[in-house]
């Protein structure tokens, strides 16, 4: 009975939200411009929700709590990096948006294609984005599986549940495009906010009188859990600072974030969003409280199981309808960002590989190819989910290490005097090779330094050296690029 109530609430909430999203795009004729970037007419409030909707995913809901539970203070980086990312975005995204509007970009790789005058670079960036989105979509799937398994009291086969959930979202994305996803974000954010307040304030108060009481209990049983370890320790202070820098640089170069930037009505919309989005980050503080409370109430979960901790507490100590609503909030937090990520992964390959190299022709074919690719990415992520088992934060960091290699190209790309495409491409390849070498060595950090940042430095050095070398050799493809702009 409890499982029926909880799963029933999830089903009703998800279907209701999808209907709102579909109603928002009723009567809209879907061409690529409308489908991928909402016709470039999205205003401050809807853009805020879209950006926040893509940012506050199942990762926020379960992953941050899971890390607070499983690792403690290193989780604080999550609170820092989003805020630093908004500060960077204040200066960067208005330029990106202006160029996108003037030159008609639809996808993240379009920026590289046009600014560096190289379709090879555009395709390289598209394929990199596509590959790095797979672990990110997988993260949402893993979250979905946890929620459905716990809400169903284990009575339901999670594989089938996840398959159904994911099929629903793929179909939704297929039909509704970006604008539909933005409207679905409204319901999602309201429910997630309620869920987080419950988890971060009511939950610790229930067991320890107040959130501070939960922290006292954690300190009693795990001294040192609430402060970050020393500079050379794994996940110590060096790791926290370098990971914050890495991920804040990567935040807005994700293909789905670039598409959200393009979809803004104007540059001022983006600046105002950058000013106020940090307030949203405070939600994470409450999520940490939920994770710390779970550590005291239900100790002993290891590895990826830590991600389930806070939902298990809700399942064990609260009525089924509360579990249903919290799980419904989490389900939307997985499905809505997954929709935007699927759309971004599909559109970059459709446009920057298929259309670019002549596999598809015309708007109708392009929209159809994008829609089919949505289903392909969904299947790939589903396969990755079935094979790879790691924590939610672990999955996100895999994606960030790779995607952040695009950061130098985006920053230099807004300038009038740009390096040649070959230098940007060589930098990206150097960064990726560095990551692969460290991945084979099986290490995520060197003396506490996040390997993604080491790869980013290698990327920048190779980029600079190649740019100088090309100029010295006098081939100077850069001059032709400059002449075009």
């Amino acid at each position, binding site marked *: 009975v409890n499982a029926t109530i909880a799963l029933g609430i999830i089903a009703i909430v998800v279907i209701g939200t999808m209907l709102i999203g579909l109603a928002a795009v009723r009567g809209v004729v879907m061409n690529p411009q409308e489908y991928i970037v909402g016709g470039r007419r999205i205003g401050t409030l809807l853009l805020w929700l879209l950006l926040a909707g893509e940012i506050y995913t199942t990762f926020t809901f379960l992953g941050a709590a899971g890390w607070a539970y499983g690792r403690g*203070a290193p989780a*604080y980086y999550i*609170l*820092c990096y989003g*805020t*630093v990312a*908004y*500060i*960077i975005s*204040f*200066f960067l995204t208005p330029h990106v948006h202006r160029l996108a509007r003037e030159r008609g970009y639809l996808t993240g790789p379009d920026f590289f294609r046009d600014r560096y005058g190289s379709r090879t670079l555009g395709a390289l960036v598209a394929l990199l984005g596509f590959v790095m989105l797979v672990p990110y979509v997988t993260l949402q799937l893993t979250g979905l599986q946890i929620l459905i398994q716990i809400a169903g009291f284990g009575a339901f086969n999670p594989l089938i549940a996840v398959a159904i959930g994911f099929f629903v979202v793929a179909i939704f994305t297929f039909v509704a495009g970006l604008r539909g996803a933005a409207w679905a974000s409204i319901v999602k954010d309201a429910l997630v906010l309620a869920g987080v307040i419950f988890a971060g304030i009511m939950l610790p108060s229930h067991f320890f009188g*107040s*959130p*501070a*009481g939960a*922290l*006292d209990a954690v*300190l009693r049983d795990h001294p040192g859990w*609430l*402060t*970050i370890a020393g*500079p050379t320790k794994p996940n110590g*202070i*060096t790791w*926290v*600072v370098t990971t*914050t*820098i890495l991920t804040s640089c990567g935040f807005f170069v994700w293909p789905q974030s670039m598409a959200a930037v393009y979809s803004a009505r104007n540059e001022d919309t983006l*600046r*105002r969003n*950058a*000013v*106020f989005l*940090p*307030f949203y*980050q*405070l939600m994470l*503080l409450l999520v*940490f409280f939920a994770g710390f409370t779970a550590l005291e109430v239900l100790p002993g979960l290891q590895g990826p199981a830590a991600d389930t901790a806070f939902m298990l507490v809700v399942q064990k100590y609260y009525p089924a309808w509360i579990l249903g609503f919290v799980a419904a909030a989490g389900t939307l937090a997985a499905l809505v960002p997954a929709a935007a990520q699927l759309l971004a992964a599909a559109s970059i390959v459709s446009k920057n590989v298929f259309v670019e190299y002549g596999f598809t022709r015309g708007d109708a074919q392009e929209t159809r190819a994008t829609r089919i690719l949505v289903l392909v990415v969904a299947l790939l992520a589903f396969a990755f989910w079935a094979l790879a088992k790691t924590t939610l934060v672990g999955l996100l960091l895999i994606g960030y290490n790779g995607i952040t290699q695009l950061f130098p190209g985006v920053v230099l790309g807004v300038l009038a005097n740009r390096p040649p495409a070959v230098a940007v491409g060589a930098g990206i390849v150097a960064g990726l090779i560095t990551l692969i070498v460290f991945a084979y060595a099986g290490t995520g950090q060197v003396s506490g330094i996040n390997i993604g940042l080491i790869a980013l430095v290698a990327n920048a050095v190779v980029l600079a050296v190649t740019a100088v070398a090309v100029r010295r050799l006098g081939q100077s493809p850069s001059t032709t690029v400059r002449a075009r702009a």
Partner: protein
Amino acid sequence: MNSSHTVAVVCALIPALALTVGVALANHLEPRILGLPFVLAWIGIWVLLTPGFMWIAYRSERA
């Protein structure tokens, strides 16, 4: 780079540094603020202050 742009960059650098290298300097348990460990309170306060700094940056960029 004109002076209003300089104001915006400085306003952005202050919270950005506080939330990166600043965290390394603030990595202590005591004094606890409203029950939070000092380092978490430090981060929370700077997240709250960031929109203030960025609002000044926004105004000066438009001026």
